[in-house]
């Protein structure tokens, strides 16, 4: 039996979460292959081949794979699936679009966002916005799953796997790529940032969100995050929402500014190593998950904090 990892990349760089997926795949003690679909993603392919523990990389090039449309990715995986007993990827908007399609085509269940892999195809995952952990067993012939990246260490880049080129099945002609908008930012990517500065509705406006939080984030080299309330109010863009239905982060330091701490939000940040909360309301639930709480007016203390950091 062999494990297949669906690699996420942007056409050039391999997503660091692939290294976490490789660590997760080692739970089966079997050969690990990584699939790099795209249209000439040679650098990402080489990076995949350098991950320790990877035996083979399958590179598939086709013009219709350029934008990694889920329908095409799923058909490709199914076309090579007979060699694999486990198909997995790190949980992201890319994998959760494509892998359920693969599972249905293979007539097997899928296990989403796995926190822990136990023996005998048994998995721990969370439900109800992380309030309950379930342990489930899958007896399906092929295991299809996504893993919760931050729960697995990144495998080292000390490997040297062989690269094989494989042909893609024909394009799925009922879905056409039109365009994309990627948020331009000099800041690190939210999902893998070492420090995250997050703002809630207490910021009061998009202007304040920017004026209060940006200098702090810049000084710390941090990514910016936001609560759903702040996003819905228009203070921050959608793609920086942290929580159950947004991005899940686990940085070394998470600074929550004016965040109340609804369970839907804490689901997205509670694996952070150190949590700092700044909120005027001493009873805000965010203090129950914070290592250090500062009850104060954020408009006073955030600039003071920014100034005090070297």
């Amino acid at each position: 039996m062999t494990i297949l990892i669906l690699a996420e990349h942007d056409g050039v760089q391999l997503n660091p979460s692939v290294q976490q997926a490789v660590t997760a795949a080692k739970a089966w003690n079997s050969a690990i292959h990584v699939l790099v679909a795209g249209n000439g993603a040679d650098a990402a392919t080489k990076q995949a081949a350098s991950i320790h523990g990877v035996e083979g990389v399958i590179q598939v090039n086709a013009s219709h794979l350029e934008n990694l449309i889920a329908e095409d990715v799923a058909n490709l995986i199914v076309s090579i699936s007979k060699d694999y007993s486990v198909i997995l990827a790190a949980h992201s908007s890319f994998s959760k679009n494509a892998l359920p399609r693969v599972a249905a085509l293979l007539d097997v269940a899928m296990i989403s966002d796995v926190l822990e892999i136990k023996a005998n195809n048994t998995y721990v995952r969370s439900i109800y916005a992380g309030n309950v952990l379930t342990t489930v067993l899958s007896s399906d012939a092929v295991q299809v799953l996504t893993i919760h990246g931050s729960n697995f260490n990144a495998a080292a880049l000390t490997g040297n796997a062989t690269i094989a080129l494989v042909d893609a099945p024909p394009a799925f002609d009922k879905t056409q790529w039109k365009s994309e908008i990627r948020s331009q930012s000099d800041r690190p990517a939210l999902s893998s940032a070492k420090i995250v500065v997050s703002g809630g509705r207490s910021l009061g406006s998009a202007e304040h969100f920017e004026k209060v939080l940006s200098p702090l984030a810049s000084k710390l080299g941090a990514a910016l995050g936001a609560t759903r309330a702040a996003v819905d109010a228009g203070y921050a863009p959608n793609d920086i929402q942290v929580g159950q239905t947004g991005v899940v982060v686990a940085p070394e330091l998470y600074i929550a500014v004016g965040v109340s701490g609804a369970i839907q939000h804490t689901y997205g940040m509670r694996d952070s190593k150190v949590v700092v909360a700044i909120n005027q309301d001493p009873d805000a639930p965010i203090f129950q998950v914070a290592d250090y709480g500062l009850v104060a007016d954020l408009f006073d203390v955030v600039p003071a904090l920014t100034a005090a950091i070297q």
Partner: protein
Amino acid sequence: MKILVAVKRVVDYNVKVRIKPDGSDVDIVGVKMGINPFDENAIEEAIRLKEKGLATEVIAVSLGGSANQDVLRHALAMGADRAILIETDVDLQPLVVAKLLKAIVEREKPDLILLGKQAIDDDAGQTGQMLAALLDYPQGTFASAIEIEANTLTVTREVDGGTETLALTLPAVVTADLRLNEPRFVKLPNLMMARKKPIEAINVTALGIAIEPRLKLIQVAEPAVRKAGIKVGSVEELLNKLRTHEGILV
């Protein structure tokens, strides 16, 4: 154009779910239930397409016990024309739900199937993609905007780090993100009127699909609780703690 919308009945998002003392499952007896929030966005979008004259009929479908009539009544009160309840007391997993919905799609032949992008109880986020796969339909998941022109649906999708736009040839499956729209409030007169709209009940056995769960639930447990730390009195004290105790920001 006909639209089918799938709605799930879930524990209300404000409820903190408890675990049975023997750890065999969650205990949701007597807990407040309601329509899955993302499914409400899906219904709203279907009704808006009808109000724009792009759709002729909106059909809501739900799967579960007779109690699911309440979420279907909610969909009807929002403006759906009729509803279908696939009746079963078995706990259904996403692959089975997708197979049962496929059977309804084959009967009703909708041009568009709308679902929420995930259910807030199992947080699986699989059903829409699985249904699209089984039907060999195109899929537009995590949709924050859709437009229909002739036989093409243009969908804007919320993805990590931005958005992307796809053109899908109908019939297609679309799963709704919260940003797709702001669902309307249901007024009492609409709720009264919804009582007159038909709900067709179909026993799950009539569809001839194996519904046994594939994933066996071994146990449920409380996650490790993150312990509350300490309150600090000033920015200086905070920085001191981070530097000396945590070794960060030195």
